[in-house]
């Protein structure tokens, strides 16, 4: 018995020694670069005309402020003021408590809270209302508000372009805190968002986005860039979420890729919050203790972040096949291509990692490592890294040396106000599907609500039944969140979107 044990230990020791030896001999030469010197990342988006110089950085996208101003006082209704206002109105909301859902379908509306000696305009859903603000108008601005106790969304955009959402406090407000869906050219900055059951800030199917200076915590996903292009996420403090920063391709959405995301100069600290996403949903698959997660997104640049105390790993790079609760989409490329990891400060990550990561470390001969900064599973072609020797890594040995060391030349991806999304006659159903439904329903997987494929099977040739359901949904599934009523859409629109949804093919 004893003998067997000793032999076993010997074998293990020899195997370990061989692993270290071969591991070392396979190691590349150490290449040391300085991020203050060397080439700069060219960026993935070129606005037409000349390149923007740092001094000319765009800080506003919603166009000139309207001159028409109305004031809403405590006890009055914000929605009533917006209904009465012409397009091109600033709605000033005085401190007080407002129990309502605000719909904005006009262009150039700005809802600006007035803060008096720390007292804000508070929208309180009392855990009865679903959404605080839904906007489909363009050039929309929401500022200085406090939003609490809604069940669905804090602020959700539905195909509105040129939006600015800043200086808001959003607490415990359902599934998404700030959620611009299908928008181009938007800023989300200086918001404090917490206790959100899915993504605190969720950029969905949008382009040309800046997410900056937000404080995001106690949520399942901190800041999520999903099926979106040309986004910069910088100077945010992202802490005590289940996962901090995420660049995702969610399969089964109408936009099939996520390309060109820069995560830079953020604090990504202690994202170890137990996962409280609905079991079986996409975000419930995020391991608690994830600093940055890249899943099937391409050209994600990670630079200058302080990433510390995330217990599973500082950075996880994965493909669809290895991710939990993901159903592959034949039209989405499943790999994280061309990830670029520049200098980051990584401390005390991966101190209590998952079994899968431990197995990978073992396979690479990294026995006894107490930390894990970067783990990559699944293919990640064309990826690069600089100063790799400073991190504890698994799966990045085939990353090349990046031919740039910083992103200084890429200021932001914002544009002067862009025209509204073009809606052709007869496309109303499609736009509503893209702008609203796909926020929670993917074609073939479980995001928040049931997959569209399942809805198609349930309603077969009964679009009116579906249109009636979305106006007044009834809870049918214990393990899914309740669907918010979409009765702010008129009956024709509801039928149009139901018809569209029942025939869409991915």
């Amino acid at each position, binding site marked *: 018995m004893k003998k067997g044990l000793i032999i076993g230990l010997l074998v293990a020791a020899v195997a370990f020694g061989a692993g270290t030896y071969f591991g070392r001999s396979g190691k590349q030469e150490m290449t040391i670069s300085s991020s203050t010197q060397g080439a700069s990342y060219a960026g993935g988006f070129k606005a037409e005309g000349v390149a923007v110089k740092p001094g000319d950085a765009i800080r506003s996208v919603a166009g000139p402020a309207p001159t028409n101003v109305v004031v809403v006082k405590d006890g009055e209704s914000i929605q009533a003021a917006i209904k009465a206002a012409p397009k091109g109105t600033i709605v000033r909301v005085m401190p007080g408590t407002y129990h309502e859902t605000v719909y904005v379908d006009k262009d150039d509306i700005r809802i600006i809270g007035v803060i008096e000696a720390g007292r804000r305009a508070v929208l309180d859903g009392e855990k009865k209302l679903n959404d605080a603000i839904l906007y489909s108008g363009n050039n929309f601005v929401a500022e200085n508000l406090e939003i609490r106790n809604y069940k669905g969304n804090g602020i959700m955009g539905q195909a509105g372009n040129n939006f600015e959402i800043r200086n808001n406090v959003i607490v415990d407000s359902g599934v998404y805190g700030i959620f611009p869906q299908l928008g181009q050219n938007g800023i989300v900055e200086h918001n404090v968002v917490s206790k959100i059951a899915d993504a605190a800030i969720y950029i969905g199917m949008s382009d040309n986005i800046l997410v900056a200076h937000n404080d995001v915590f106690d949520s399942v996903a901190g800041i999520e860039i999903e099926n979106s292009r040309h986004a910069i996420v910088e100077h945010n403090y992202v802490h005590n979420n289940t996962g901090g920063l995420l660049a995702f391709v969610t399969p089964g959405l109408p936009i099939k890729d996520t390309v060109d995301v820069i995560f830079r100069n953020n604090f990504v600290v202690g994202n170890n919050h137990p996962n409280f996403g609905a*079991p*079986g949903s996409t975000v419930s698959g995020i391991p608690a203790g994830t600093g940055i997660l890249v899943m099937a997104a391409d050209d994600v640049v990670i630079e200058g972040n302080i990433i510390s105390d995330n217990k599973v790993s500082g950075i996880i790079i994965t493909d669809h096949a290895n991710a*939990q*609760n*993901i*159903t592959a989409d034949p039209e989405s490329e499943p790999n994280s291509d061309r990830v670029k990891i520049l200098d980051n400060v990584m401390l005390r990550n991966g101190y209590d990692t998952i079994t899968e990561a431990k197995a990978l470390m073992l396979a690479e001969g990294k026995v006894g490592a107490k930390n894990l900064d970067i783990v990559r599973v699944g293919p990640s072609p064309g990826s690069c890294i600089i100063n790799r020797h400073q991190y504890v890594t698994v799966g990045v040995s085939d990353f090349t040396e990046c031919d740039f060391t910083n992103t200084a030349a890429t200021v932001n991806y914002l544009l002067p106000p862009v025209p509204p999304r073009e809606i052709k006659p007869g496309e109303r159903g499609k736009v509503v599907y893209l702008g609203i439904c796909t926020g929670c329903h993917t074609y*073939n*997987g*479980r995001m928040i609500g*049931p*997959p569209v*494929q*399942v809805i*198609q*099977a*349930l309603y*077969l040739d009964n679009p009116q039944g579906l249109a009636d359901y979305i106006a007044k949904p009834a809870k*049918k*599934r*214990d*393990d*899914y969140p309740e669907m918010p009523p979409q009765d702010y859409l008129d009956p024709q629109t509801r039928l149009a979107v139901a018809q569209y949804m029942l025939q869409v093919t991915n």
Partner: protein
Amino acid sequence: MLISQARGIAISSWIGTLLLMYSASAFSADGEKLFAQCVACHGNKGEGNATLNAPAIAGQDAAYLERQLLNYRNRRRGADKSDVLGAQMQAMATTLGDDAAIAKVASYAASLPKTVSAAPAPGNLHNGNNLYQGKCGACHGGKAEGNPALKAPRLAGLDAAYIKRQFAHFRDGVRGTDPKDAPGRQMAMMARTLPTERDLDDIIAFIHRQGRPK
């Protein structure tokens, strides 16, 4: 006057309760009696018998069992020539008598303690979980426990061969084709969305893990 009326109501409602209690026990007693016809194949605890191709029915949703028995009797299930096993059940269902008898036996089988299938169902649980959550869980429940609100039966506890066979029936137009069988048609539509047979094995492996002691 008022008092006697109130007393009258009290007495009649008391008698009503008694009658209800009596009929409920008679109902389940009838169900148990009728269930005797099922045990030869489905087992005396309703646990199913894979060798006889008889699925577990213990603890299954009563409305689902009733609907299937009616489907058999009305030749909406088990009538296709290729479904030899279904034809056996179809013959049995016609011997059960009227709608009330069917309701009774369904309700009795539903009242039996849920069982799990002992036969192993190997497969890739990671893929099985992902596909199950993406395609099945929205109706059959996250743990394959079934959802009466969506007319979706419990799948946990069913043996792999039965699930596979029924899935093929749905996919291949053997089951779920009758215009009056709306839930069956829904399942048939979903069955056609699964890419490969291997995926089905993985999903079944996931289902097999559900509802059993850890």
